[in-house]
């Protein structure tokens, strides 16, 4: 049984069909990447998987449960979460408050202190920014905060939507490093990216989405070698 199974997903914004037919699976322990041009329907798919948008057709199964139509808060409590595109940190709240809210599902279990220490180790920069308003952080720091905030809910599956968007190359490097370390911590990752090279370097498998439909899938190696992917994304690189 796969950790995540998405089967024939379709999502619309009113009359606009943004996602027509997306099927994918993620096995526990994998890093799976979803590639595709702007407007291909990647973010819409992630939002439907996590329950923020209703699926018009198709099923989403997480960890053996059919979670189609469940609320995002319910799904997050099951152990899957999303770090949204554009980071969406709570700008007027402090770094510490952002993280405490991230741990909302863990308060009853009483392990927030341990989680906190783990985050400070993974993201040393956040430790020194603890009392700062999140909105005053740099782009790279905000992305780290957004990921740390997601990790505070102890996800088994993390959906990452373009974590390298708008960051300087050196910071992109750091974020991809971090994704590798998350895998080592036992977190499974579904990574949406436009940084095709780096995404395929780190991923085990990938899907290519175009016009709201999965048009290609395969191992990272196969996708790297694929003429279609070369033509569409990797260009002369």
């Amino acid at each position: 049984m796969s950790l995540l199974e998405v089967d024939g997903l379709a999502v619309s914004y009113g009359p606009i069909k943004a996602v027509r037919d997306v099927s994918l699976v993620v096995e526990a322990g994998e890093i799976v990447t979803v590639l595709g041009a702007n407007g291909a329907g990647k973010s819409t798919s992630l939002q439907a998987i996590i329950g923020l948008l209703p699926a018009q057709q198709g099923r989403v199964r997480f960890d053996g449960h059919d979670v189609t139509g469940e609320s995002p808060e319910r799904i997050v409590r099951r152990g899957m979460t999303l770090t949204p595109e554009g980071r969406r940190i709570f700008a007027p709240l402090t770094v510490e408050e952002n993280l405490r809210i991230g741990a909302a599902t863990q308060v009853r279990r009483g392990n927030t202190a341990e989680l906190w220490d783990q985050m400070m180790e993974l993201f040393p920069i956040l430790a020194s920014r603890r009392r700062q308003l999140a909105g005053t952080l740099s782009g790279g720091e905000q992305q780290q905060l957004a990921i740390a905030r997601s990790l505070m809910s102890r996800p088994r599956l993390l959906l990452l939507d373009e974590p390298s968007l708008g960051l300087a190359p050196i910071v992109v490097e750091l974020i991809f490093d971090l994704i590798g370390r998350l895998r080592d911590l036992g977190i499974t990752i579904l990574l949406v990216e436009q940084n095709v090279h780096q995404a395929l370097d780190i991923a085990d498998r990938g899907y290519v989405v175009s016009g709201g439909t999965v048009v290609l899938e395969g191992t990272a190696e196969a996708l790297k070698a694929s003429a279609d992917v070369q033509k569409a994304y990797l260009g002369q690189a």
Partner: protein
Amino acid sequence: MEIFVQQCVNALSLGGTYALLALGLAVVFSVLGMINFAHGEILTITGYTVFFSLMLAVPAVLIIPLALIVAMLAAAAMERVAFRPLRGAGPTSLLITSFAVSGILQVLFQNLISARPRPVPIPDFLTGAFTVGPFHIGVIQSLSILATLAMVGLLTLFLKRTLLGMAIRAAAVDFPTTRLMGIRANRVILAAFAISGLLAGVSGLLWIAQRGSVDPLMGFLPVLKAFIAAILGGIGNLTGAVIGGFFLGAIEIGLQAALPEPVQPFRDAIALTLVVVVLLYRPQGLFGAVHSVRP
């Protein structure tokens, strides 16, 4: 000088009542993007709770907590019954629904209780005044100011220190992302309504203590003023709502004191004109409106 100090106390006390109401409107607006015009009926419900408690000889110490609990429950019930089914229907539908709730409650009060004002006897010590040096200061006015400060302080602590409070602040910025933290949308919205109910309950108690009576339509004017105060402060901005409330209180009392007798009937018109002038220069309100991502 004495008169000036007394007028300041009056302004602070009236402004405080507006501030609490405006704060309640702003808390709900901040998470839902909706102005609840039925907020004034919470004030009325608080008043009737006091009225019936006195009639049924409920012990005095219990009346205030009872009235506040009823106010919170009434606000929470409004959310549950009227607004939750319309979640996602857009701010206009919610706004119109809130007018409907307000109207329905007013009709119910008129038909089930009485269309006419019911007296609420106020204990003598509340209507009195005390003397500090050369100043005579009203007991109710002082209590209003203290209660306002206490409520603003408590709310600040709640919003800063508790997880639910932080979640409300986060939801005011970005509701969908707050849900991604595993925080239940319904809980946040219900909490915002309960808080607005508590604040309306406190201002209701202060309002009744000044008037000495309850009637079915008593909530309309204060909530209108609170709405103006919230706009003045910057819609959805909690600090702005409090300042806007005090600002409006100061304008009203200031005009009452300064305007010559023949012009007094135009006091509200002049006060509102001043508000319009402020908004012409600062359309976003004194503290700036808050824009956010809503559910």
